[in-house]
């Protein structure tokens, strides 16, 4: 009986990584997503961000790391036409004109789909603007080129990214109708590996007792 219990426990953990949750951002009043199709493991937050290149001692980091900018104001949404960024978008859009926006997952996610629409203007940074996906160690997993100089540029891609901790929208444009299809990642984090090992060890111990 207890043997089955441990296996069920393990299976349950695996099962939770199969359910797909869709995070939909309409940016009507803030950067809080509507969650559907399941429940999100962990939390997701959005903040204006910057690339950090040095650690607390001023020594270079091994990889540049996007961090929330604690000196920046809160995430702003608005009508792009109010800033001259093209035709009005009713229901507002995310204002990432002045600064990049970082979406941080407290628990790594596997992303199987991503969609995004840009504003209806040709004003935007004319080079190098990519939506970027990073893992918890700040390694760049994937990037999607978004052309901010094309009116109404949109992205809709199926992906198979594992262990995404950060998603960055580059500065220079308004963004709307962002959508991520996520599932809690089975990709072990270093801390997660430890946790799983603990559970396994406990299960084995119980069996022996019996």
């Amino acid at each position, binding site marked *: 009986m207890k043997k089955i219990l441990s296996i069920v426990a393990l299976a349950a953990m695996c099962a939770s990584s199969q359910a797909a949750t869709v995070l939909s951002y309409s940016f009507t009043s803030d950067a809080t997503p509507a969650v559907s199709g399941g429940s999100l493991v962990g939390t997701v937050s959005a903040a*204006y*961000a*910057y*690339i950090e290149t040095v650690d607390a001692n001023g020594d270079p980091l091994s990889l540049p790391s*996007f961090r929330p*900018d604690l*000196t*920046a104001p809160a995430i702003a949404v608005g009508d792009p036409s*109010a*800033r*001259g*960024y093209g035709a009005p978008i009713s229901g507002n859009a995310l204002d990432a*004109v*002045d*600064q*990049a926006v970082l979406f941080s997952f407290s628990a790594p996610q596997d992303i199987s789909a991503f969609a995004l629409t840009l504003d209806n203007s*040709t*004003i*935007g*940074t*004319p*080079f*190098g*603007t990519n939506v970027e996906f990073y893992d918890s160690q700040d390694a760049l997993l994937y990037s999607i080129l978004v052309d901010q*100089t094309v009116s109404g540029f949109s992205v809709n891609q199926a992906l198979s990214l594992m262990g995404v901790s950060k998603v*960055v929208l*580059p*500065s*220079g444009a308004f963004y709307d109708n962002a959508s991520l299809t996520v599932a809690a990642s089975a990709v072990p984090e270093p801390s997660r590996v430890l946790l799983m090992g603990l559970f396994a060890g406990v299960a084995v111990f119980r069996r022996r007792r019996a």
Partner: protein
Amino acid sequence: MKLQNSGKFIAVITGLFALGNAFAAPTVTRLNPPSALFTYADATPPYISRFLPAQRFDLQATIQADAGKTITSVVFKVNGSPVTAASGASAITSIGGDKFSATIRGYSNSTAGVKTLVVEATQNDSLVATGTGNFEIASITLNAGRKAKNIIWLIGDGTGIAHRTAARIVSKGASLGKSNDPLAIDTLPVTGIVVTHSLNSIVTDSAPGAHCYSTGNKANNGQEGVFPDDTTDKWDNPRIEHMGSYLARTQGKWLGIVSTADVEDATPAAFAVSTQDRGAGTGICDMYLDEAVANHNLHVLMGGGRKWFLPLDGSAGAGSGRVNSSTSGGGDYVVPSDVQAGWSVPAGSVDPNRNLIADFQTAGFYYAPDLAGLNAMTGSETKLLGLFNSGHMDVSYDKIAHRRNSATIAPGSLIATYPDQPLLEEMTDKALTVLSKNANGFVMMIEGASIDKQAHNMDTERWVHDAIEFDKAVAKCIAFQVANPDTLIIVTADHECAGIAISGGSTVTDAALQSTAVGSLKGIVGTYDNAKFPAYTIAGDGYPTTMDVDYRMIIGYAGNSDRYETWRSSPSYNVSPQARNTTTGYLVTGQQAGTGVQSAVHTASDIPLSAGGRGAAAFTGVFDNTDAFFKAMQAAIGGAK
């Protein structure tokens, strides 16, 4: 016998002819953008021509064809790939003397790195000329932090380190070894040193000295917004996109240009206009409206130079300076068709009777002819044109004297004609009010122009006074930056003027100075301990009550011509140093040779640059003046922590 010889003769001549033809070949004599690779076969850094990713510029080559031949096709290749020009945006033009100019207009490249530029020109007899150069696309780190939404360039024309020190001694004072207070400029947290050489000399003039900040590139003396070419046409040169244009189309920013000079002068024009002749006033001012208002979001233009905006036929009053392009001196503009296509600009026309003030008003500009006009603004205006003098504005020394006593009008000034000219801080205030209405921010250039002009004239009191006026405009911008933290302020200069040095302090009172014999004037200069601490009092309006104080500061000029020095203020404005105080001053001979009016000159000295606000941290160290453009654009495009 004779036939044989003539046959041999013919054979020899033919042979020589063939040999001669074998040596004949077309050559590329110029390749733009300029590079050391082309000029000296040196591919190593520093790279002369550098551009932002996606910043537009022209490719141009001058080819010397063989006598009687023509160039039939020209191909430009960047890193081996041929460049395709937009429709109509390229040309091969015969420019006389068997020379041809080939252009591709409005090229840009979005990938960072050094690129090799090769031009291959084919002659109609199939001979090919090639030239190789290079340029660099700068690396901009995106998403590096919050962007600088507003960028304010404050240019003290001719302002070297000693100009600042002199302004500080007079306006703030020093005692017991320390300055009593800092200049507003001194409160900016970051200072660097800028090297100011132009493309063709260690000593620049104001055109390349401002063009470097507006385009990130070098220019020949006298030229702005362009690289040099081999034609006399002032408007066909290879262009570089201005900062105002780039930020307008990629970020919706507005552009503002404020100066105490005639607005056609080099420093203001270098931020909006493209010409090889900084003196082509009619065309330059037309271009402000036709190109800068249309394409660069120029919303504020203030300074002197009303004469360029009045029709020549006198229908809007006399005093017009509008010339057409049929003379060597002045110029209205007509740009060739490849420039029109490549840069989306109108052709222009020779129109000496254009009423440019009326045209600006039709384009939605509020027009202010004086300070009263500025003060009458409702505060809802989004476009502002201010033309406060027919030529350069009068200097602050004379404006303040007139404000204190309306009967005081300096001989030689235009204060009788234009009695209500604003001070630079008043113009700055209105410009900030208008430009800050844009939710996407602005880029603005504010120039204290007569620090340089009066230093040329070695009129000490007038340039020091203008440096104080400039500092007050800086203070206005710093207050704006405190209220708007996403603002970057850069206080710099185009070059140093006159080799200014503070050599000491007067050992006598002003009264004693007036009665000192001419031959003894040299002896009143107190050096070392005898310089002490010259003290000036500041009146309620913020300017010195008088510049003629007892034991005054003494200024020496190193890049100078002859002058007669009395050490006291000159009542007249703009009198030549050789004609001023000839019986009351002692002759100080200078080192400038040459013809015409002699005055002090620009020097090749480095100048200080101070910065504050978003992205200011980058402006430290010793760097080229063009680097300042890239540091500012990093803050505007990529942001800074």
